[in-house]
């Protein structure tokens, strides 16, 4: 994938809402995971290269110790069995969870993560919120800071659970089961929010190219603000918690509105011009309510942690 060939031509994409393939046939996947962070760190690229290496790389480390031809035969047979089993699992798993589509959302690098985190906390100076496309497929997140990813939400969720455990520990309420309870309740709220957004998108008949995983990514961005608020509350007390939560709530409200505006509203309304009509008004209400639900959830999921 050549980043210099990406053209911001998203206006035509609305004609074919759901026909884009995020990762066609795997020939893009090798290019997606190259290390572009430039800092020498390539944990994601190393990991994916190990994934693609194939069964020969799954080492039997003690090979030099066994020179008996019989055990060599057994080892070769065992490794071929393992590779067959792995192929079968991959083939069947791909039917239920679209692994190839998920890979797109994890094609991030350090620079992208840093910029995105800064955008989530301070979205006021960013001007161009369009997602750039390259020949009808959206560009991988590492090349475009506006593209949604699943890395930050996943890491944010795990960090939130750990920070919640820490916060409950300072209140002398910690027990290991509580970690599981926190994780499952936060996950349940996330799933309910994504289902509610999907239902309202269906009812308003918005022709958008937002997929379910996109919505999951956008709903997961609020964990960053929640973590900042709780950590500030733990370090500096309740006023700091309220102040930082207020700041992060405003930031994520603006972030969601500016991101969703381009995806949900019609072109004229997205430019900022006032467009009358019941349908546009309904879409505007939908955008506003999705964005307003984020601060509510942020407060709901953290107020019991900072007492």
């Amino acid at each position: 994938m050549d980043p210099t060939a990406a053209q911001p031509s998203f206006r035509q994409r609305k004609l074919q809402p759901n026909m884009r393939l995020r990762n066609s046939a795997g020939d893009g996947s090798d290019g997606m995971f190259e290390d572009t962070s430039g800092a020498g760190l390539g944990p994601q690229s190393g990991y994916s290269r190990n994934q693609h290496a194939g069964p020969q790389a799954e080492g039997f480390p003690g090979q030099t110790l066994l020179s008996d031809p019989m055990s060599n035969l057994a080892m070769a047979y065992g490794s071929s069995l393992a590779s067959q089993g792995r192929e079968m699992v991959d083939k069947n798993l791909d039917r239920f969870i679209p692994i190839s589509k998920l890979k797109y959302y994890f094609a991030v690098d350090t620079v992208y993560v840093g910029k995105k985190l800064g955008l989530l906390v301070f979205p006021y100076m960013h001007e161009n919120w369009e997602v750039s496309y390259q020949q009808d497929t959206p560009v991988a997140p590492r090349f475009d800071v506006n593209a949604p990813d699943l890395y930050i939400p996943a890491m944010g969720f795990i960090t939130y659970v750990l920070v919640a455990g820490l916060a409950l520990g300072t209140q002398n309420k910690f027990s290991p089961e509580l970690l599981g309870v926190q994780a499952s309740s936060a996950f349940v709220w996330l799933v309910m929010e994504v289902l509610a957004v999907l239902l309202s998108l269906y009812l308003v008949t918005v022709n958008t190219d937002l997929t379910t995983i996109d919505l999951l990514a956008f709903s997961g961005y609020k964990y960053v603000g929640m973590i900042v608020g709780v950590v500030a509350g733990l370090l500096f007390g309740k006023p700091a918690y309220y102040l930082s939560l207020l700041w992060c709530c405003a930031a994520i409200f603006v972030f969601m509105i500016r991101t969703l505006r381009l995806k949900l509203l019609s072109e004229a309304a997205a430019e900022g011009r006032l467009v009358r009509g019941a349908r546009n008004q309904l879409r505007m209400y939908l955008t506003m309510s999705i964005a307003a639900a984020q601060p509510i959830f942020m407060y709901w999921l953290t107020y019991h942690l900072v007492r």
Partner: protein
Amino acid sequence: MAFTLYSLIQAAVLCVNAVAVLHEERFLSKIGWGVDQSVGGFGDEPGVKAQMMNLVRSVRTVMRVPLIAVNSVCIVLLLLFG
């Protein structure tokens, strides 16, 4: 606030049951949500009410039979594990 995944599944099953139980001629036609009342033109504006009627009708058509199985599983689990 102690939600588990199972309570989410139970809530979802209850909601789907509620939608599946709505009777076509005794109730939905009486309040104007019947199948024959949702035919619009070929315009591009189905509207919220028409979408909801479509949703109710499709849930009732699709989920009638699987709900029997899911409800039985939930009843057995509830009896065994409380």
